[in-house]
């Protein structure tokens, strides 16, 4: 333990030595650091028996999220660590990951980060199309907002014209699919090794991305391009409609995200064009969020969200949102316990499929939080990928303790 600690200190000093031109003498004493730990106890209950052999209905689980942050050199250098460990009945959901571990150098006009990092792009609520830097952790959460850490060099440059973010990435993170006991799976188990890479370099293929973003008046705009191994695997059927190839293709993806903030209304648009050897994808999400603030002086905010989702892939889309409407409501009580509720439904405009969701959370005392989540699949059409999951309606209870 002690040796490791010394090694680590040595690393910190090494960074300072090479990268701080002022030398490390005067600022060496001013080191700030902070450690935080989050413990989660979770219970997921699936209302119906699984369609496939071996699937469970009850999933008790625990997770740990340690975080460490250290800053020195007058705040211009820092190291961030964020880890994740989960133990679950589904052996594939039992996993650990380094969500973030990076060193960052901060200058007035630019920032440089080296290491594993999480980066979010986008503005919409029902789908995150332009967000492409990190692999999605689909066994962790249903909403697609849990991400795996991605090793990268990230350079961010700020000028009057906006912010330019440049990314060079390698060591591709493969998507983890559920195990035999798990839900939200296909009849056959998908193993990481079932997937092939289009590139001969496999997970070592260098990926690049650039994003320009700016806030101009009421508009917040982001324009991005990604070249490299696509985070979403392709499931290519053969002529008879059977699954023939599971592949991570090399893609070019251009994305645009725009939000206009006008009074109580947020207008949102996210669109992508993704080109690869097998398919050309064009998809967008667009809509609004209207907030009735402090309704009748109760302190409660009620937001209404409406978003339209389009994807030209139709059935092939893993997300299965080809021509859908999302309608939702966010209720923030703004009380001492920060009680919040998010209700929503995704309605397929062509087929019968509907997907309802409820998320709610509330703090207890100072260090506890309880959250519940429910997802209900209704009349899922047999022409959608989601048909595999038609019996996977569930409720989830989470108890979080913060240290």
């Amino acid at each position, binding site marked *: 333990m002690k040796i490791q600690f010394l090694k680590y200190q040595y690393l910190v000093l090494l960074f300072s030595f090479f990268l701080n031109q002022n030398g490390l003498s005067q600022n060496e004493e001013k080191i700030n650091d902070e450690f935080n730990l989050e413990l989660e106890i979770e219970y997921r209950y699936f209302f119906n028996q699984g369609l496939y052999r071996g699937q469970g209905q009850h999933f008790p689980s625990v997770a740990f999220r340690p975080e460490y942050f250290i800053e020195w050199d007058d705040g211009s250098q820092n190291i961030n660590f964020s880890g994740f460990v989960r133990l679950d009945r589904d052996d594939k959901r039992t996993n650990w990951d380094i969500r973030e571990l990076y060193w960052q150098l901060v200058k*007035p006009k630019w920032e440089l980060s080296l290491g594993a990092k999480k980066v979010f792009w986008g503005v919409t609520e029902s789908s995150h199309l332009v967000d492409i830097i990190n692999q999605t952790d689909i066994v962790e959460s249903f909403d697609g907002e849990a991400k795996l850490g991605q090793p990268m060099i990230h350079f961010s440059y700020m000028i009057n014209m906006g912010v330019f973010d440049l990314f060079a990435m390698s060591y591709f993170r493969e998507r983890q699919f559920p195990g035999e006991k798990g839900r939200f799976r296909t009849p056959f188990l998908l193993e990481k090794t079932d997937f092939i890479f289009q590139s001969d370099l496999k997970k070592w293929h260098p990926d690049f991305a650039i994003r320009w973003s700016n*806030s101009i008046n009421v508009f917040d705009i982001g324009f991005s391009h990604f070249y490299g191994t696509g985070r979403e695997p392709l499931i290519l059927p053969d002529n008879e409609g059977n699954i023939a190839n599971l592949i991570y293709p090399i893609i070019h993806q251009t994305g645009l995200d725009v939000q206009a903030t006008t009074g109580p209304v947020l207008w949102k648009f996210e669109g992508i064009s993704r080109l690869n050897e097998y398919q050309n994808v064009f998809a967008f999400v667009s809509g609004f969020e209207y907030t009735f603030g*402090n309704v009748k002086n109760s302190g409660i905010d009620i937001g209404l969200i409406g978003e339209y989702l389009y994807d030209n892939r139709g059935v092939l889309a893993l997300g299965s949102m080809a021509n859908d409407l999302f309608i939702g409501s966010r209720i923030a009580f703004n009380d001492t316990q920060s009680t919040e509720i998010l209700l929503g439904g995704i309605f397929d405009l062509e087929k019968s499929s509907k997907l309802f969701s409820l998320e709610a959370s509330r703090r207890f005392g100072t260090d506890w939080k309880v959250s519940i989540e429910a997802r209900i699949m209704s009349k899922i059409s047999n022409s959608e990928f989601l048909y595999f999951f038609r019996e996977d309606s569930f409720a989830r209870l989470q108890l979080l303790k913060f240290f």
Partner: protein
Amino acid sequence: MKKLSFVLAIITLSLLAFNNPISPEEKGLEIAKSADFADQGFESVKVELTMTLKNRNGQTSVRKLSNSTLEQITDGDKSLIVFKSPKDVLGTAILTYTHKQGSDDQWLYLPAIKRVKRISSSNKSGPFMGSEFAYEDLSSQEVEKYNYKFLKEEKLNNSNTSVVERIPVDPKSGYKRQVVWYNNEKDLRIEKIEFFDRKNQLLKTLTYSNYKLYLNKYWRAEQFKMVNHQTGKETLLDFENYEFGVGLTENDFTQNSLKRAGR
């Protein structure tokens, strides 16, 4: 030409001074401007805050945050608030560009998913973090955000104060009017504000205490106490470790710095 305009100016001034004695509205605005002027030039400041919420039964709940402010002369100030506790909101941060006219620009940072979200600032009357402070009570108090009317001079805690009524310009404000006590003996620092709801009923009283003078010029209260007369709840805001002259710049109030502040 020059001579003529000078003569005209003299005439106008004398007309103002003798024939049209200064109206209560003009005097009110004059006091607000002087108070604002007295506080100008601080450039940037950092402070740590503890917010204590008390309900009618005396139960308390505490939250900690830090605030950095960058002074702007031609437009409203910029500020960055970072939440430290309760721990479930640790790292949540809000960047605000206040504007003298129109609504403010505001971005919220959600650390769990590393997302920066531009949020609507039009809901200013709602409670901040479940407290008795509304967003509009805590945002930068620009002169242009109110219309003023001088009411009277009054003794308050052994000091001479000017009592000024101010009416929010923004129709979305939760208040019909506010009454402000400016301390005439201490560079017009504010001692007390009474808030009247849209029905013109007294809603809340904010009192400032433990004032300290920084850099020989800037008065800062170490405690704000907001009492809600209609619910019996109150919120204390305690300020610690005021840091003036830390040399913050525009670069410390960007979306990148918002992400960094929140982690």
